[in-house]
């Protein structure tokens, strides 16, 4: 009770002194007792330095100068002026060396004045544990292929405080990287060695992806933290240089291959003559000095003797169905001479050459049809003889391929060579007959058997003055049903003796004129 009375007396005395004597002693006019709570205080840890800032609720009041004092509640300490925060113009103060404990409750007292007028007298309570804002450090990021470098900018040195003291103690730095909604956190312990620019590498990242990074300070005791704005970077694609090198190598290879293919194709085309044809032809194909008419000359025609062919028209005897007379064969067999040396069974040839070595009568019972004047149908021999002189100069060629000429030569059954110029040389009948020997008849006509199968008679053209070679068969009567009289092929003619027997009558079987 006595103690309480003494305490009250002491308070009244101090208040009296403060109000009346204080101003004369230099104490601020404003007193803590008259202070109010017109300021909003905020504490921010910036670069590991606690910065106390204040803002007036009444913004219309703008003091020119500020003075900051402080005290703590755990001890009965006096209000102390914060070093470097007297008559400051900015509404903030660095309290690094004044405020060192996180667990304390600090009482800041701000007096704002303009001149000698006190405009602001505010006091507040600040607990670093609850209210200190951890401002993140400045940083930059650099993206690479599969990692990001986070360059953190810390102060060059930490505040020098007694061990165990300092508001930045037991802090850790959290680095978060985010990509496509996935966030990874990296924690860095901060101690006295964390000074200056510090580079942290975030590795094991996916190339060609967009990553965003944010940093913030973290403490187990401190609840208020401030996250930095996200900074993003897109990583480089993996093996970008390799891909570009491979692309260039691939392009060169492609060009080389294409050039090789094109060159090979051109070479092949040139070889086969599709392109770049030679303008230099071989000599044999050089027709510059050659006459336009390049056809070779025809070989000279074989000299062919022009012979007069006498048609022998035989009257076809119609069988009257009488079997009385059998003298037909005799009559037929017997040659019937006619005037002028014509035979009925032979091909009378009048040689123009008197010295014909041989002659042959065209004989045989066979009838040789004239092929020189082909008709639509084989016609019976006319009764009249149409003579046609086949004048041969003695050069017969059975299969003479030479050109017609009036050259005198020898007769040949199958003579393919040129006729010789021997006049009157008649070739031996390759199929001699008994009566094949030439017989001269008046009028220099030689009669001989000729195998028409081996006779090649050429009809001279109209310019020839000689009589056209017309094969005329002797006229004779032939039974209609006599198979031997029919115009047979050459297979019947040559070797038949019967034919020889009838050779002097006319043209036997198998004789034909070509």
């Amino acid at each position, binding site marked *: 009770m006595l103690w309480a009375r003494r305490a009250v007396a002491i*308070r009244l005395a101090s208040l009296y002194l403060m109000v009346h004597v204080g101003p004369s002693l230099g104490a601020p006019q404003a007193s*803590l*007792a008259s*202070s109010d*709570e017109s300021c909003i205080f905020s504490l921010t840890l910036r670069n590991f330095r606690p910065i106390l800032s204040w803002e007036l609720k009444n913004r219309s009041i703008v003091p020119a100068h500020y003075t900051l004092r402080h*005290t703590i*509640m*755990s*001890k*009965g300490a006096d209000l102390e002026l914060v070093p470097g925060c007297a008559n400051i113009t900015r509404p903030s103060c660095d309290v690094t060396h004044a405020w060192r404990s*996180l*667990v*304390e*409750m600090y*009482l800041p*007292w701000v007096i704002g004045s303009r001149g000698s007028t006190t405009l602001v007298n505010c*006091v*507040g*309570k600040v*607990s670093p*544990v*609850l209210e200190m804002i951890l401002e993140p450090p400045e940083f930059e990021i650099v993206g690479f292929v599969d990692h990001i470098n986070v360059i953190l900018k810390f102060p060059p040195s930490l505040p020098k405080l007694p061990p*165990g003291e300092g508001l930045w103690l037991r802090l850790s730095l959290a680095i978060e990287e985010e990509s496509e909604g996935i966030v990874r956190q990296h924690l860095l312990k901060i101690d006295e060695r964390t000074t200056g620019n510090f580079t942290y590498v975030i590795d094991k990242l996916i190339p060609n992806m967009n990553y965003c990074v944010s940093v913030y300070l973290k403490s*187990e*005791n401190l*609840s208020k933290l401030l996250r930095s704005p996200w900074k993003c970077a897109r990583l480089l694609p993996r093996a970008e240089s390799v891909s570009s090198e491979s692309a260039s190598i691939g392009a060169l290879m492609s060009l080389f291959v294409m050039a090789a293919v094109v060159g090979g194709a051109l070479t092949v085309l040139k070889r086969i003559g599709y392109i770049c044809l030679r303008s230099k032809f071989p000599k044999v194909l050089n027709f510059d000095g050659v006459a336009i008419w390049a056809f070779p000359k025809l070989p000279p025609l074989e000299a062919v003797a022009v012979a007069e062919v006498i048609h022998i028209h035989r009257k076809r005897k119609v069988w009257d169905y009488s079997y009385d007379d059998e003298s037909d064969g005799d009559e037929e067999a017997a040659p019937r001479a006619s005037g002028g040396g014509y035979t009925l069974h032979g091909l009378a040839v009048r040689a123009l050459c008197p010295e014909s070595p041989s002659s042959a009568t065209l004989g045989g019972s066979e009838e040789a049809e004239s092929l020189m004047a082909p008709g639509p149908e084989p016609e019976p021999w006319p009764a009249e003889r149409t003579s046609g002189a086949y004048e041969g100069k003695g050069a017969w060629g059975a299969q003479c391929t030479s050109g017609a000429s009036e050259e005198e030569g020898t007769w040949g059954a199958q003579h393919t060579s040129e006729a010789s110029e021997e006049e009157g040389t008649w070739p031996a009948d390759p199929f001699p007959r008994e009566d094949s020997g030439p017989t001269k008849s008046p009028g220099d006509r030689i009669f001989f058997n000729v195998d028409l199968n081996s006779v090649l008679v050429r009809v001279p053209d109209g310019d020839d003055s000689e009589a056209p070679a017309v094969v005329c068969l002797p006229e004779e009567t032939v039974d209609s049903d006599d198979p031997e009289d029919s115009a047979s092929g050459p297979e019947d003619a040559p070797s038949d003796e019967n034919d020889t027997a009838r050779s002097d009558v006319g043209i036997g079987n198998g004789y034909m004129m070509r």
Partner: protein
Amino acid sequence: MTNRCTLQLTVLLCLTGAALSVNYGKLRFKLRSSNSACQTLLWQLITSPQHCLDDRMDFQIPRQVEQPQQFQKEEAMVVMYEMLQQIHTIFRRSFSNAGWNETIVEKLLEELDDQMDCLETALEEIKQEGKFPWENRTALRLKTYYLGILQYLKAKFYGRCAWTVVQVEIFRNVSFLNGLIGALQD
């Protein structure tokens, strides 16, 4: 057969030990979150401390509490439990003081109870493990410390500034508890 039984017993003991062992990670999380809530509630209780500068008192909390790094986790738990228990006792005496927000006080007491419940479970486990620190001097010093707080209140006739000073001191205690929670490492 003998080896089989031995193996089964070993597995059983391991499982039992795993079940009975304290999950310090979970305990830390729960204590820290509750402690943060207590700080916020106390801060709301403290109003205009600048008017009670004259009632300020240095109650001299044990220095070991200010430097919790030296504690083993079992000692830290014991210390924490003692502090929580004393704080709870102090604030139970404040119901009679008018002017306080009773809702805040009730919430504060609930948070303190939750923390004590978690610590009791853990302390039972370490007691069964035989690791209970029976002779903990810090705990005894805390008892003296909190007795002085109670005597201050009594002397101050449980005045408003006395209570403000005590609130501020308890606020500091809760901050020290955060340090002690950090000592509960596996």
